[in-house]
């Protein structure tokens, strides 16, 4: 127990509780009104999506463009269950079913495609993502293209709790031996195998964990935004998530969190200028790749000790 509450963990626990308290206060004081609350909810879902994709792309180096497919599975599992059983229990069951289905689908997708490299993997996962969406589009139970109309089931504390849970799972995985194994797969797959790591196994693990968490994000979406339709989960959605990961830095979890927040805020402020938004998006992607391909934080993490060191170094230089 003592180990669990070391300096690193304590800092993060404190900041998580801190931001929760801050946001709750702002919400009850009405400063964050219902419009902004939608933004907060969107950002929470974005963080979950970005970090889960970063696990696959940034940490393990597997370029997956099918993430929206798993979000779709999660959203519809929750949605369909809530239609049958309109209660919180129904919703929770829906999340569970979504998790199970996406884990199975992820395994089916992973095993043939994770042998492929780079571009081929990207296109194969994109194909799978589209297949999932087309299947959902054509099922009776999902109401096809018209989508499902759902009640708003979730509130801020629940969402925040789920966010914390997802982040803890991902970060604990990354900062451990399996996480290191995934990083080694990204760095040099041949060397990784030579060091005794079953690279296929870890690619599949990362893929499944990422997919499952994306499905949870999908369920969160279904529980908050009243309507879900297959057209919300095309590869454009996958690319939206990819933009967040790239912007924050592939391989940096804190980068994904920051990017999700920044992009969520930008999107909400630019909502009225939607055509300009896409133009800016496109230019931003090209510019980031040309001038700073490692993104905001590269593969580094934003840590409190990091800030401490940074300030120390600046003081030394000044002397």
């Amino acid at each position, binding site marked *: 127990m003592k180990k669990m509450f070391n300096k690193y963990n304590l800092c993060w626990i404190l900041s998580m509780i801190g931001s929760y308290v801050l946001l709750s206060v702002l919400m009850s004081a009405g400063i964050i009104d219902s419009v902004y609350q939608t933004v907060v909810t969107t950002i929470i879902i974005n963080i979950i999506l970005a970090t889960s994709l970063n696990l696959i792309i940034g940490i393990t180096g597997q370029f997956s463009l099918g993430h929206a497919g798993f979000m779709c599975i999660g959203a519809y599992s929750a949605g369909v269950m809530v239609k049958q059983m309109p209660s919180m229990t129904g919703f929770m069951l829906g999340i569970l079913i979504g998790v199970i289905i996406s884990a199975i689908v992820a395994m089916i997708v992973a095993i043939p495609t994770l042998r492929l490299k780079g571009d081929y993997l990207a296109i194969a996962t994109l194909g799978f993502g589209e297949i999932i969406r087309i299947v959902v589009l054509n099922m009776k139970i999902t109401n096809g293209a018209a989508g499902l109309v759902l009640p708003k089931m979730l509130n801020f504390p629940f969402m925040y709790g789920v966010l914390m849970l997802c982040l803890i*799972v991902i970060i604990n995985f990354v900062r451990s031996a399996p996480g290191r194994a995934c990083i*080694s797969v990204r760095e040099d797959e041949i*060397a990784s195998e*030579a060091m*005794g790591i079953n690279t296929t196994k870890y690619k599949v693990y990362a893929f499944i964990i990422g997919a499952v968490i994306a499905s949870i994000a999908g369920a969160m979406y279904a529980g908050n935004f009243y309507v879900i339709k297959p057209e919300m989960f095309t590869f454009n959605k996958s690319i939206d998530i990819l933009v967040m990961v790239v912007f924050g830095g592939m391989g940096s979890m804190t980068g994904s969190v920051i990017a999700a927040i920044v992009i969520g805020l930008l999107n909400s402020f630019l909502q009225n200028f939607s055509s300009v938004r896409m133009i800016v998006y496109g230019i931003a992607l090209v510019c980031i790749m040309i001038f700073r391909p490692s993104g905001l934080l590269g593969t580094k993490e934003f840590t409190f000790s990091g800030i401490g060191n940074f300030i120390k170094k600046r003081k030394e230089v000044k002397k």
Partner: protein
Amino acid sequence: MNVLKVSGLTKNFGGLCAVSNVNMELNERELIGLIGPNGAGKTTLFNLLTGVYEPSSGKIELNVDGKMKSIGGLKPYVVTAMGLARTFQNIRLFKSQSVLDNVKIAMHKNIKYGTAAAILRLPKFYAEEERVQHEAEELLKVVHLYDKKDELAKNLPYGEQRRLEIARALATSPKILFLDEPAAGMNPQETAELTELIHKIKEDFNLTVILIEHDMSLVMTICERIYVLDYGKLIAHGNPEEIKNNPRVIEAYLGEEI
């Protein structure tokens, strides 16, 4: 008894025969050299023995608990788990990771907690992480890289990168160590230090070592036996004295005697 036995090993790439009918035996605690001109097939042979390539024909047998088991065609991580470790001709470190992490990664197969324990941060996780940290640091001390343990691998000077590769290979707890041109690009001083290091780790870690090298000062000094490869075939085999005076070897390296 042999620790590794190779019989009639052949590897074809399309029409090119890279390794042809090679026979080899390694015994416990031996230090063997594998030499030959460039393109002779030495690294290909290493790749075959460590599972990177599948043999076209022939047998590779490893001594596992007294029995000779065929390991040809097994995947590299399986072969490593059975006790074979290697370094690479072109350094393949995990560049963006720290020196210490590079070693920790190589200890993976011996880590006794799984994904679930990692995510749930069970006590086993903390205990194993501490053990891994300690053992990795000890290995770095052996190759004199302990003070650079938090440095990024890509920032190390070339000679130290090569030493890190060796530390990494050792971290897999091998029985047999394959070193692919460990002295490449080193000056005589560094080569001498490397020679000493190889000797030391062989003794301390109870290893069988086989190395590919072009630097004859290294090879002739520490190798007990030498195999010579040319155009994929074994053209000579013996102790350093025999090899130095073998006409076929001289011809392969220097061309025909005038």
